[in-house]
């Protein structure tokens, strides 16, 4: 379990490598209920959209970023805010390398602290997507889980 004890700016999350297949992309699009053809129809993606192949949709990318952060934090990590910008499409045959670093630890509120994390999704060394996640973490092992924060006090 990760808490804010000893957590400092510059701390690195473990790298995560994710091989991407057509199945990964189609399954992510279907599970997120996104039926736009560039996420499941290779011929349409190439011939009508000028893309190299089908591309991973933004919901699936978001899912990988959230998973990356909570794999590290454990279930008490509660994401309050995240954003990402896609620079290059992610296609079957790519391998994503996720790298994350703690950019800020904000002062404590209600037993938890906000931790800002910068994430890079690299494909062949080039930036495919950049992301920022603001995560609530318990201050100590005995602090309440941020999930127990009263609705009226939750202010991401």
């Amino acid at each position, binding site marked *: 379990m990760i808490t804010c004890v000893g957590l400092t700016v510059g701390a690195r999350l473990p790298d995560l490598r994710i091989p991407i297949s057509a199945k990964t992309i189609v399954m992510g699009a279907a599970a997120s*209920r996104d039926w736009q053809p560039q996420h499941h129809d290779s011929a349409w993606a190439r011939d009508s959209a000028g893309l190299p192949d089908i591309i991973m949709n933004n919901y699936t990318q978001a899912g*990988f970023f959230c998973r990356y952060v909570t794999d590290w934090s454990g279930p008490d990590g509660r994401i309050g805010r995240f954003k990402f910008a*896609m620079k290059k499409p992610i296609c079957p045959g790519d391998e994503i390398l996720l790298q994350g670093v703690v950019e800020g630890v904000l002062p404590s509120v209600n037993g938890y602290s906000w931790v800002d994390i910068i994430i890079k999704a690299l494909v062949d060394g080039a930036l495919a997507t950049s992301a920022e996640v603001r995560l609530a973490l318990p201050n100590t092992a005995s602090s309440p889980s941020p999930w127990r924060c009263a609705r009226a006090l939750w202010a991401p």
Partner: protein
Amino acid sequence: MIETALPPQVSQWLGKPVIVIEHVVTAEVGLWLNFCVAVQDANPLYWNYAAALGRTEAVIAPPAMLPSWGIPHDWSPGAEGPPLRTLELHFMVKDALGLPNGLVTEVEFELHDPIRAGDSVRVEQILKEVSPPRQTRLGHGRNWTIDVVYRKPGDILAGVQTLRFLGYRKAP
């Protein structure tokens, strides 16, 4: 070149819900576990009732799926005409501005109450701003920002998604 002034129709859309989608899908564990499988997310809050009990009271849906609960079924009994396009307001703006190409430049989520099994969402798509015309690397176009607000029954805020777009006409 494109007109500097916004079309009146687009000006009227600014700042108010233009597309509202009412509770079209009921969140179910099986639906969100398909997504967890796709991204291989083992977070016990999505899978394990015992682990979730002391934190979220019941298992919850992955936050990245929030928009998915507001996408109408691609087909439903008795429905007439094509389903709404995903983020219909974006396409309406793009069409009204006469810009044939569009892409998402940034997506942001602010997360509030998590989605549990049995929840559904009311979705409001709001046009926040449209930039003046400008020349970009891809062609002449404009930027615009759309907020999508997701509320559970009882008007409980589940989250806000902010999408920033570039619409453009390809340079000749």
